[in-house]
Structure formats: C-alpha cells, structure tokens
C-alpha cells in the first residue's frame, strides 16, 4: 500500500475543505492534500443551483456552483493537490488517513488532519413517521440532487414536511419545473428556514406554510398516494380530530441536518451531543491533538459564507499548530446559558480574540445577548430579533477577556 507523509490532509473538498486549503496555502503551508469522494469538488454546493451565496464573503450574490468555483479556481491556481473520486475509509487518532480509489488503497501520515465532511439529512426513519413505505418520500437534499445533478424528476403533487431552508428552496425549484407544491407543514410554531426563503420560495409562489402541523401518516404501498396531516399542541403532540388527508405523490422532508462524524468518532474525537459535531477549542482543534474540524461537520450553518470564514479561521490554527508544534491551551469553557441552544467554540484561551457562533432556542424579538465571565459582563448586544434559523456571531476582544474563567452566553428578552 502506498504511504506518504503530508503536512495537512483535508477530508472533504466542499466549501469548508476548499476554503481551508486555500487559506493554508496563503499562510505558507504547501504540503496539502484534499481528499474528495466525488469526481468534482464543491460538495453540496454543486446541487445548490439557486443564488444568494457569497454576500458576506465576496460582497456579491452567487449561485452555489459559482461560489464553490471561486475557491476551486483559487486552489487550482495555487497548485493545491486535490484527489477526486477518493473516499477516506479511516482516520486514526495518530493522524493516519486511509483512502480508497480505483487506483487502490493509500495511506497518508498527516501532520494535521482537517475534518470537513459536511452533514447529512435527518431521514424519515429517524423521525419514525408511521405508515407504509411507498416511494415518493424524499429528503429535500436527495430530491435536489436528483433534479439538479441527475436530471430526474421526483414527483408532481408535493407536500413538504419541515420548513428547513432546503425544503423551502425545493418548494420553489419544483414549482418552477411544473410540480404543484400543496403546502409546507412545520411542527414548531415558527419556521426553521431563513425569513427571506419563506418570502421568495413560498410567498412568491403562493405556497402556504402551516405552522404547528405535522405529517401523522403516510399512505400508499407502492407510490405515495397521500399523507395525513394534523395540528399539534404546544408539546408537538398531534391533536386528535384535526387530521386532514391530502392527496399527493411526493413528500419532501426538510427536517434537519446532522453533522457527518463517523470518521471523527473512529479517530476518537469527542462530540457535543447538542451540535453532534466535535468539541473544539478556539483554534477549531478537536479533543484529539492535530485533528481540526470546521463547517457543517462541526455544527450546521445557515449560510455558506460562515462555513468558509470558519474554515479560514481553522487554517490559521492549523498553520500555527504546525509551525509551533502545538497551540495555546484553552481552559475556559464556553457555556450556553439562558435562551441559547448551542455555542462554539467549546473552550477559549482567554488571551486572544475569539468569535463565538451560537444559535438561540426559540425566536425572540428585541432581546439582549450577553456574554459573562466570572460574574462580569464581557459583552452586551441588543438585537431586534434572534431566530433559531440564524447563526449569531459574537466577536470578543482579548482585552475584555481573562484567562482561566469560564464564559456564559445568554440571549433574553
């Protein structure tokens, strides 16, 4: 078996992996290998053909493929080695990366490993929607891939369960291609997708959004023939008597994304049960020294621009780790306080600037975000609104922080 040394092996050539590679190169790290399982790098952006990407990172609005191409072109210009059609079989705790491709198995002994595998969709099985198992039930991303990459139409009369962004995007996409989208049903009393997607994907096409509703049964034993939807109470339990049968041939599920951390677990990386991504310090280093993670494999992002920025920040940590043989210790924990679902990074040094990324638990208006350390307010921000759908970024200055004491972030009305 081929075995080579590499300064950095990046697992995944999607937006996180490519941004990390380019930034690492710019920081002087040259011996980089990006392992990509597809023929073409770009990850999920290859199928996200709608526009709206890049406003933060590039100051203009691009489609997904164009956004990915920006980084890919840069990587190619810089001569960064990207091996396509290659799957990582294993990453070990001592950073031995085993890959498989048509050329055979290969192993790379890496100075640092960057985990950038992205996420997968929550499926029907994980939701345990009762009923039969007809065809015509697709997760939104799968439907998107069939339509945008494989030239395959998945249905004509469509119900969407869940108001995640991909589901909203697919409501519009399928409408444009002649399907009839009957409605979007969301179990929570608020939408999970971004407000602008509610506006331009649903409202523009008069597709109704039914909050506090869910699909309670699936009908048909060959192809889907319909679904039963029901209203739910404040604890998300279906309310008897509210059942309504809808005839449809397609059910699209947009009910959440899960970081794809099987390789991370093999490597011994500790995961956060809330994000289901790695526990990281402010340099994006996981619990295993020399293994880093960024992007949707770490926590699910709302906007790809933040994936790129996070990966670029990771690259700085990796470059420093390689140059200095280690990173400053991060011993202050960052905790999610009142109103906060999760917050990253999990630990900070207290001696350097850091940006926290967080999501709130429920929608709030006119609220106050507060970061406290040792009983002292480090930062206070007023916000007109805070939505679970949106990731909130909070930059903290080193001079406001102290070493050794934990931080807590809260968002309250």
């Amino acid at each position, binding site marked *: 078996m081929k075995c080579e040394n590499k300064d950095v092996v990046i697992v995944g050539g999607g937006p996180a992996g490519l941004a990390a590679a380019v930034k690492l190169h710019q920081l002087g790290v040259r011996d980089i290998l990006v392992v990509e399982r597809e023929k073409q790098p770009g990850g999920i952006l290859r199928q996200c053909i709608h526009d709206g990407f890049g406003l933060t990172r590039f100051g203009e609005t691009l489609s997904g493929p164009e956004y990915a191409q920006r980084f890919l072109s840069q990587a190619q210009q810089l001569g960064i080695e990207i091996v396509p059609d290659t799957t990582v079989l294993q990453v070990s705790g001592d950073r031995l990366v085993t890959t498989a491709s048509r050329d055979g198995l290969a192993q790379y002994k890496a100075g640092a490993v960057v985990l950038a595998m992205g996420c*997968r969709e929550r*499926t029907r099985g994980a939701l345990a929607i009762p009923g039969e198992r007809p065809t015509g039930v697709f997760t939104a991303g799968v439907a998107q891939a069939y339509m945008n990459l494989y030239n395959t139409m998945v*249905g004509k009369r469509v119900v969407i369960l869940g108001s995640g962004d991909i589901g909203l995007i697919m409501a519009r996409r399928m409408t444009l291609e002649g399907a009839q989208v009957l409605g979007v049903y969301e179990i929570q009393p608020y939408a999970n997708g971004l407000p602008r997607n509610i506006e331009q994907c649903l409202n523009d096409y008069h597709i109704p959004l039914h909050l506090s509703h869910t699909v309670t049964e699936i009908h048909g034993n060959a192809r889907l023939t319909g679904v039963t939807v029901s209203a739910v109470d404040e604890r998300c339990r279906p309310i008897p008597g509210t059942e309504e049968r809808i005839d449809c041939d397609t059910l699209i599920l947009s009910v959440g994304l899960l970081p794809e951390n099987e390789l991370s677990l093999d490597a011994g990386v500790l995961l956060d049960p809330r994000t289901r991504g790695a526990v990281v310090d402010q340099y994006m280093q996981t619990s295993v020294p020399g293994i880093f993670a960024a992007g949707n494999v770490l926590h699910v992002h709302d906007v790809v621009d933040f994936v790129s920025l996070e990966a670029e920040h990771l690259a700085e940590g990796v470059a420093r780790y390689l140059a200095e043989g280690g990173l400053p210790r991060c011993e202050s924990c960052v905790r999610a306080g009142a109103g906060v679902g999760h917050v990253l990074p999990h630990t900070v040094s207290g001696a350097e600037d850091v940006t926290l990324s967080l999501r709130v638990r429920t929608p709030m208006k006119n609220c106050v975000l507060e970061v406290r350390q040792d009983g002292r307010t480090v930062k206070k921000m007023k916000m007109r609104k805070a939505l679970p759908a949106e990731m909130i970024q909070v930059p903290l200055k080193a001079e406001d922080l102290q070493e050794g004491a934990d931080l807590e972030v809260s968002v309250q009305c």
Partner: protein
Amino acid sequence: MEPQFDVLVIGGGVVGCAIARELTRTRWKVGLLEKNLDVAYEASGRNSAVLHGGFAYDPGTLKAKLCVEGNAEFDQVAEELDVPFKRTGKVLVGNTPEDMASLRRTLETGRINGARNLEIIDKERLHQLVPSVVGEFALWSPTSGIMDPFLYTVALAENAVQNGARFFFDAEVTAIRREDGIYHLTTKQGEFTSRWVINSAGLGCGKISDMLGIHGYSIRGSKGDYIILDKRVGPLLPMPVYPVPSNTHMGIHVTPTVDGNVTVGPNAEYVDDFDYYGVPATSIESLAESANTLWPCIRREDYIRNYSGILSKWVDADGTIHDFTIEMRPEAPNAVNLIGIESPGLTAALPIARYVINLIRQKADLPENPDFNPRRKGIVRFAEQSDEVKAQLIAQDPNYGELVCRCEKVTRAELLQAIHNPLGVHTMVAVKYRTRCMMGRCQGGYCQMRMAQMIEEELGLQPTDVLYNRPGSHPFTGRVREQ
C-alpha cells in the same frame, strides 16, 4: 401434451426457495412462481432473523422436529451457500419465581425436542454473557444464532437457478386447473404447466389451497412491528435477548443483526390486510418501552428505520394455532400443500424442503441430478475485508475502489454484481438488500441517486422504468429536461 415443468413451486419465500433448491438435486425440471418482484419479499424477509434452537414448540410437532434439524445443520448450510451466520446463542431473561417455573418448563420441552445444551443461568453468568441486560436469571440456548434471512433466501434461490431451476417474478397464481394429469397455472406472465405443484405461498397458502380444491383452512396474518437501531448500539448486544415466552407469543425482544445493527420487536396482532406493512406510532413507542425493561439501551436518536412482517398462521375459531401442515391430499393429486408455515420456518426451511420431497417420493420417481452443486458464492463485501484483501480486490477490479455507499462502505463492484444478479431481479430494493447500499444511517441520502443511475445505465432503463420494490413503486416521474 408435455408440460413445461415437472414441478412448479408457488411462492418465493425461504421455504419455496429451499424446496426449489432441494428439487434441483433431482433431474426434474423445476420452476418457481413468485407474485412479488424478488424473493423473500414477505415474511421471509421480515422477521427477527434468528436461527431458533427448537425449545419453544410442543414435543412431537413438525415445528419442533424440523427446527431442531435445521438448527443443527446450519453451519454447513451457511458455509455452502456463503451467507452470513453467527451462532451467538440467546437468552430468555426472567425475574420472578413464575418466570423461573416457566423457563424450567421451556428447558424441559427443549430437552425433549432435542435442542442441545440448554441451561438455566444465574444473574452473574447472564451479565457475563450480556452485560447490558436487566434480569435475575435466564434460559441460555447456546445453539441459537443470527443470520440474514434475505441473503439466505437469495442464496437458496440463486443456487437453485445455478442448478437449473427457473424463477418467474410478478407471477401471482390466480387460477389452477388440472387436465389430463397436468396442472395449468394462470398468472400475469401467462399460463404455466406442470406435473406437480407445491403450494408454498405463505400468506397466500389458503387461497392456493382453495384453487387446488383443498378447502377449510382459516389462515390469519399475525403482524409484528420492528424498529432498527443504529450500528452504534450493536456492540452492546452480543446475542438476542428475549423475555419469558407466553403461550402464544415469543415476546418483544432485542436482536443483533449480522451486520451490527439491533432490531427491537415484534409485537403481534392479527390483521386482515396481508399487504399492509405500515408501522403505527403507538407501536414504535410501546416496542421501545417494553424492550427497554429488558435491555435499557434503546434511544430515539438511534432509530434508523422501522419495518413489519406478517406471519401466516392456521388458526382455529377457538384461537388454537396449528402446527406446520405439509400434506398430499386426494382432492389434489400430485400436489404438496404447505399450510401455516410460520416461525420457525426460516430455521426449518431446508428440513421442510426435504420433508416435501420425501412426500413426493412416495408417489414419483426422483432420479438424482449428478451435476448438482450445493455451493454458491455471494458478493464479496469490501467493507468486511482486511486492508490487504481490500487492496487485492481493487487491484483485480478497480470498481472495488469506488465507494458508492459511504455509511456501509459498499463499492461499485458490489452494486454491479447485484444489478446483474442471477435471478434477473432489477428493483432498487433488490440491489439494496443484496449489497446493504442505502441501509446505513443516512438511509440512501448519499448513495441512492448513484444506485438509481447505475440501474438505469446497466439495464438500459429510463427513470420512469425504475421500480423501488413492488409493481407501481416508481420513485421517479420523468426527466427534468427531456433528452
């Protein structure tokens, strides 16, 4: 007239396939008619996947005798047919003095039936065997095991085909008549003729029996629901864990699969619709609640799928469940009628097949097929090999280096073999069950598009021709842009 076949088997479940396979040991021309698009679509592929020890059936019954026989020979069978099998043993866990009394009775029944090495074990021993279980003592059956019922049925079918049998799918038998000593069977695929007919139709056995002129069987479907758990919990369960059995039901149990998942189930409920496999929410909750008292490791985030199966039982009006009935009757000469083949039909499939053939021998000469080859090779699974073997596989066939399914690490080479399977079955589920592609935690999120594309390319199909599992199960409605 000369009939097309010497014998036609109706039903491509594990028993029908075992009968077809055993019949290819003779020179008879063997055919099998299956109403679904693949073998093992009903009860054979939808159960607990356990090789039973034979202690749960009344002494003297066919269930007891054939189960014990099937259990004893299964190492050799699995080896010949190249199918996964683990003799894990299993425990029936009890807590109360009543449980103990019940387990002692079960043990005694098992001894009479010939089930080997049964013993009652104490709490300490139980926890050595299964540390995560909750219970005071158990009946330990070291000869019980786990297998892949789908692959086992496929292997029997493929071995039958390899030895000359012909299989026909989407061929539900809708009428049978006998003229001049020859049976004529009407199906969607046309009429089939044969000297002998074997009714191995599972849930349809009552209907076929009526068509043969043998009346009076009341066949009921007993539906059981299951939850499948993520492989993450697999290491916590080294063997099937059952509660103390009641008179009619084995009880809700947890079972490791040969692939490392865990199944939870089944409940049992008589149903009239033999075609409905939906799993109600209440079922899912009660299964988890019940099994958690036995094995408290069942968490919602580990659910990856649920499924159900329907057992075919011959039940009297007073609720009595009959033994396996395997008969030749004067109303239907040259026919073997199998009624009420339920659990332990999977374990007993080959002994049942031999029993059927011995019945036929009473009336007909069955010359031996000198060319019969009992061995069949399955698809070599990349994920299960060492790095050295993986490298060799890729060197021999680069398609082994192209991973299509990331969760189960299934390669293009395996998919190609499954798409061009010896039975000529071409549904997505056929490829899925033969390879495990789409069966991992992402449930096809990454791989199903690739699988569909390969099926289209390899078999020259349009998207609208692709079927998922049964007739009418089109996943796709067309192209986005016509070519």
